[in-house]
């Protein structure tokens, strides 16, 4: 079974606060799910030809498409904490 410390380490990476009860349940559930994933160990490995035949679906340029003002205002409006057109964030350092 996955340890409590391991669950807390992953929860920290995921930025999730979990209660003691949730941690306990997560230990049980994650262990069962990861055990199930062990099935993949017996899946055949891909040949070089198979890897080569894997197609990249689509790539695009990172272009900025401007939005109309109404949408922009609504997007800012959705932020829980703001001042004028700025979204307020707590200090990091």
């Amino acid at each position, binding site marked *: 079974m996955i340890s409590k410390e391991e669950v807390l380490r992953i929860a920290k990476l995921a*930025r999730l606060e979990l209660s003691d009860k949730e941690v306990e349940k997560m230990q049980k559930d994650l262990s069962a*799910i990861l055990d199930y994933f062990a099935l993949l160990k017996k899946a055949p490995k*891909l040949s070089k030809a198979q*890897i080569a035949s894997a197609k990249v679906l689509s790539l695009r340029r990172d272009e900025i498409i401007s939005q109309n003002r109404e949408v922009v205002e*609504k997007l800012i409006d959705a932020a829980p904490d703001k001042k004028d057109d700025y979204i307020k964030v707590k200090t990091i350092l």
Partner: protein
Amino acid sequence: MDLTKLTIRQCHEGLKKGDFTSVDLTKAFLEKIKKNNKELNAYLLVDEAGALAQAEEADKKIESKDFGILCGVPCAIKDAIMVKDQKCTAGSKILENYVAPYDATVIEKLKKEGAVILGKTNLDEFTMGGSGENSAFGPTKNPHDKTRVSGGSSSGSAAAVASEMAVYTLGSDTGGSIRQPASFCGIVGLCPTYGSVSRYGLIAHGSSLDQIGSMTKSVEDAKIVFEAISGKDLKDATSVDYKFKESEVDLKGLKIGVPKEYFAKGIEPEVEKIVRDAIKKAEKLGAKIIEISLPSTEYALASYYIIGPSEISANLARFDGIKYGLSEPGKDLLDVYLKSKGHGFGAEVKRRIMIGTYCLSSGYYDAYYKKAQEVRQLIKQDFEKAFEKVDLIFTPVSPFPAFKIGEKADDPIAMYLADIYTIPMKLAGLPGLSLPVGKVGKLPVGLQIIGNHFQENKILSVAEQIEKT
């Protein structure tokens, strides 16, 4: 005449002849929702005023005689798809008060057609689940047996059509979320080819898998909605320039593959019999039935529950209490993140974020995510090989009909296994349709028809022929 029983085509004919107006139709549905929704919990939001205003607009268009087939026809939208200025909760506490700032591309398209949007339908939180029970706003009940689930994640969209609370609905499908509830509720659910319908404005779950599709009373209606919502969209880089063309496919001589792995174990005998009978029906109509093998099937579920949650852990990082949604006060930025996510997300969403974060974390990536991607490749190649030999593939949608509310709620793996037949083709980006073909007692059973990429025309044509017999 009970207006709520009509299909899209029948609504259109009635509107054209002047038998009733769009306002008449809309009122009939609103009344039905008032009467039945409390018990079924299919709708999270009903927009009475908005729907009536849209119906009045539609009636003006209809009077001018220049109107399309969806004009004035009342529909409902899964609450993970944004409808401008309406709440969009994704079935989650974290978005309980979130208002959509713009229309999803599919909604823009429906509005252009003059659609009437009755409201937003219930779903598993962030579309994660196979029963509807993961909604933060309570499960949707199955209209055929109210002690049972309606399937998920498009639970409300399926139940709304089955209980005649909308002519049609939109759902979304990541691992079976349109087809499985359609099967449980006895309606037609189409999950189109990945890329054929824009995902812009659909709240993301697994971006390499998510696809919007229709839930309807008939195959013809599925065709009508698909034609209206499909096509390239500049706002979704994975959408493809593709125009659906209806065509009649002769069942005579058509090769239909039946994968032996899908009937191996775990399927309920009564479900198997109904599905096999439907396959026989196709054979009687002239199709050639060929047993095929998709050898990597047994790895599909594990691959999906690594790739899906990995994408979830990235996609749901945005719900941080800063940009939108629930924000819990904290002593510093990290504390705001921890508390907002911790209090806002439900158990299944947290579980999947944890699985995904684990699989992507340092030291585990090769064993999980990379391996899952390789298996995904194997599964794709299975289907590629199969489609060299056959035109379509027939399988069950689910190993069992709708189960009891609460039956699988505490066992995540038992719940995941409910998607065992709908996941593999999703990993290959293929289209699939659930067609009601029989009942176990009063519980509907669906046949899954899988086609090659962008061959919705074949699926729909064949489904229509089976539907008629």
